[in-house]
């Protein structure tokens, strides 16, 4: 009987996908089916030395369930804890929804490209996002607030399905106080909603966007991103000034497992943040 050797063995010191343990310090419910998990590495040195850039993500691991790529939604300057705003939609994230304060999860990261915070200095910043597309942009907003003088006019145009689906509504006032124009829209309003009703891309006409000195950042449902890009391009914002954060199935975060490919890119390492000219040639190819 011939059998291939089945036991494949790995040297113990060099493990793939090795989790670093972190404790759930706090849980903030954000909306129906969405909460922010505040995590802290159990190793204090790791917590102190961990740094990330706005827009990067971690792989969050629940033993027995698996990993999920989650963008970091907290302040990059907060070295005490890491916020991950998670929507409970998959096997792993539904298990996340059962976590309690004090539970331990695995973390790997940070992975991926980030919002061009340095390149945008001296420019206007137009952030246009929807739904759970705001959490990956919140670190960028915190960065801008901390370095407000380095940026010109800053606008946040944010939309969600209903007013109860909006992320971080309690913070808008402090963002406005930092001289950020926060404009919020919902797909449908009830009789108590006196804000805008409509979709994010359609409100572009209300803003004076100087295409020569504005960077547009967008994240959200891919369909919304497409229309945001059309609107930005209609205002002659060069494709080199439009930045998009994309989402794909990911298993490794290191450009190895293949799942997150879009054309030549591994979204986990060449993205998630792209300058739109990098994506333009296949962004509209169906099911690519």
């Amino acid at each position: 009987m011939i059998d291939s050797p089945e036991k494949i063995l790995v040297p113990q010191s060099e493990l793939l996908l090795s989790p670093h343990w972190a404790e759930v310090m706090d849980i903030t419910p954000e909306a129906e089916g969405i909460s922010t998990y505040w995590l802290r590495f159990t190793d204090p040195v790791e917590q102190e030395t961990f740094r990330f850039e706005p827009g990067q993500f971690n792989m969050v691991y629940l033993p027995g369930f698996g990993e999920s790529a989650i963008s970091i939604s907290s302040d990059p300057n907060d070295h005490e804890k890491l916020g991950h705003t998670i929507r409970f939609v998959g096997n792993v994230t539904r298990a996340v929804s059962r976590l309690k304060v004090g539970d331990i999860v695995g973390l790997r990261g940070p992975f991926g490209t980030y919002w061009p915070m340095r390149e945008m200095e001296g420019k206007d910043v137009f952030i246009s996002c929807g739904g759970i597309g705001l959490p990956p942009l919140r670190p960028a907003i915190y960065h801008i607030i901390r370095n407000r003088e380095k940026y010109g006019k800053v606008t946040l145009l944010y939309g969600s399905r209903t007013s109860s689906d909006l992320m971080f509504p309690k913070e808008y006032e402090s963002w406005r106080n930092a001289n950020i124009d926060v404009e919020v829209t919902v797909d449908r309003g009830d009789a108590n909603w006196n804000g805008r009703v409509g979709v994010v891309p359609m409100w572009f006409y209300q803003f004076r966007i100087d295409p020569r000195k504005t960077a547009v950042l967008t994240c959200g449902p891919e369909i919304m991103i497409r229309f945001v890009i059309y609107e930005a391009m209609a205002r002659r914002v060069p494709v080199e000034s439009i930045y998009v954060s994309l989402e794909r199935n990911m298993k490794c975060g290191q450009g190895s497992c293949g799942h997150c490919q879009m054309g030549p890119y591994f979204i986990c390492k060449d993205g998630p943040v792209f300058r739109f000219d990098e994506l333009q040639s296949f962004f509209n190819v169906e099911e690519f």
Partner: protein
Amino acid sequence: MPTERIPEIGSTVTIQKPAFNSILSRLKEDGYLPIGPRLKDEALVYAPIDKIEDLPQGVSTVQKPGYYRLTRGKHMRYFDIIPGAHSWKQFLFPSRAELFKLQKNGREWERLPEKEEPVNYAFIGVRACELAAIQIQDNIFMRSDFTDPIYQAHRKRVFIVSVNCTHPSETCFCTSMGTGPRVKDSYDLDLTELDDVFVLTIGSELGKRLMTGIPFEDASGYIRTNVEHKLEHAEQQMRRKLDTTDLPELILNHLDHPYWNEIGKRCLSCANCTQVCPTCFCWDTVDEISLDGQTTGRARVWDSCFNPGYSYQAGGNTRPTIYSRYRQWMSHKLGTWKQQYGTLGCVGCGRCITWCPAEIDITEEVAALRNEVER
């Protein structure tokens, strides 16, 4: 015959076929597990071998789209049989690799210690196309910015006896991809089989050391010419062609072409092509938790861009239709791979043609797409 003499690196010698057993014994003494071609269930597989008699002597294959059969009795050679579904990928990038085991201790998880030591493989009979495939996977798993520890652990230790392909099968097209049938480099020993002797070229210090004490003769001019002729003949025999002109562009500039739908109607999305492909590298992870929730294991397994769950994510499935999965596979192999790793992702081994139950032939599909585009 002076057995103290050791052939130099780069030199070509001949050995009698039974002397190959000494090479296998020497490999085992040095701690290697020799893996070579064997027969199982009427197909060629790669599995541990002890002696030359384990090799399938006098066997050939007939391969066509969706067709693989063994034939016997036309010759007495060991290495004329073209591989089946197996490739060396399974050893360097195993179809299932345990990553770690965890045990719950209070609210924390502790890693259970691993006991076993890694295996040193000796690959016996690596064809030129397969060697090219290993080099392609080297680029993938041992990048400058990321090294896969599982792959690297095996790859660093592997001993390679390559083999020149003198009787390619009907599904082979390595000449089109520039990978074979002739082995060029990156081996420890390179073997060409003639009817009565093995012709060996020494490729490395390891290969040289292994030859210590093995009786050999320097390869005569007649032998060398004979090897040359056989390889030239093999090249001429290979009638299947894949025209690589403008290849990334031909595909990447026509991602919207209706022809993809035509392929999509025939493709079953069974993922066979990706499983037999020696360069396909996609993987998934699985977690296996005990019923009491106290221990869990994590493993890495092969995945395929044809699997429905492959591109499933919170926003839905990126590629819900079969045509889009086939397009992903081919546009990666013959297109975006080049941007990612500098080469195409196909070595021309023909496995995806032979093992496709729908008889889809990548060479014909590229030709058809080219035809449609130029029409």
